[in-house]
């Protein structure tokens, strides 16, 4: 392994503060540089490691950029048909209620082809955790317009910007899910700064705790960037996300259980 290190005297096992967890495999992620997927995977792996869930976690991976998620996290996985991850997760959770079952979906998977599955799984109050990555574009297939694309935002299928008269308004899936009685904990976070990473980690930890109570579906939306789809550098895309995505998709808890 080629490494580049700072001051050698400090590099001792007893001084270690942060290291990639072993739940994340050594496979190099297939994502573009700066993609929020990688950060989210890492946070998820850290939670699974810290909560000791490696043997009881079962993930359902989606179709989209994160389709190869099962290569990157060393836990049990099931690949679902496009958009059908909540349906598959429902079956897994009902057959093995003691397991921690979660789905990991992008906006093309959850908010486009899988809208019905998502809404009905949440409405039934299935005891699963849904992690929803929203970057407002179909990243994997070449930056086409998604249901979550912002008004006026350019994509390869809306080269003059999304016109709300003909193409409709961006779909706020998280708000829809929060309004359903079956959902238990619904929140929207992001992973572009260290502070937001900490908040997201806290939210996932909470969702893991709530899942053990069997009270309903937990959904965590993570507003993410797509440097390649948005045709920007990673740093620019994070800034663009702060300026344009956050006003439409405000961060924060949408539904929290009364404690």
């Amino acid at each position, binding site marked *: 392994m080629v490494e*580049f*290190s*700072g001051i050698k005297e400090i590099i001792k096992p007893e001084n270690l*503060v942060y290291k990639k967890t072993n739940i994340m495999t050594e496979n190099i992620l297939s994502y573009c540089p700066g993609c929020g997927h990688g950060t989210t995977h890492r946070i998820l792996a850290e939670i699974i490691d810290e909560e000791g869930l490696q043997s009881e976690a079962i993930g359902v991976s989606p179709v989209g950029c994160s389709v190869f998620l099962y290569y990157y996290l060393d836990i049990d996985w099931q690949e679902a048909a496009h958009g059908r991850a909540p349906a598959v997760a429902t079956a897994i959770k009902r057959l093995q209620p003691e397991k921690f079952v979660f789905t990991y979906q992008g906006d093309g998977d959850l908010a486009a082809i899988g809208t019905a599955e998502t809404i009905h799984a949440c409405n039934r109050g299935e005891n699963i955790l849904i992690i929803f990555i929203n970057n407002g574009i179909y990243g994997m297939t070449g930056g086409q317009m998604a249901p979550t694309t912002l008004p006026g935002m350019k994509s390869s299928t809306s080269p003059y910007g999304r016109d709300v008269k003909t193409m409709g308004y961006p779909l706020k899936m998280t708000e829809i899910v929060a309004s359903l009685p079956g959902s238990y904990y619904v929140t929207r976070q992001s992973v572009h*700064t260290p502070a937001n990473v900490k908040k997201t980690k806290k939210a996932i930890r909470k969702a893991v705790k709530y899942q053990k109570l069997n009270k309903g579906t937990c959904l965590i939306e993570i507003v993410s960037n797509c440097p390649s789809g948005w045709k920007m550098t990673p740093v620019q895309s994070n800034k663009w996300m702060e300026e344009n995505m956050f006003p439409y998709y405000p961060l924060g808890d949408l539904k929290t259980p009364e404690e």
Partner: protein
Amino acid sequence: MAKIRGSIVVNVERCKGCEVCMVSCPTGTIAMAKEVNGKGYNYAFPANPELCTGCANCAMVCPDGVITVYKTKI
């Protein structure tokens, strides 16, 4: 007063040179190398290692889990 000193280790071949760590570093420790790694990316490296405080901000935002952080009091 005890001074907190940190040090980072960058796994060069895993780095994709997205520069997110460089922007999040509060002390300006990290810079992007002029050289490229096996995949052709300008990888991150501790250009000013003496400034590092071991806050782990860089490791926390790194999408690829490239950075390992060490910290000690001197």
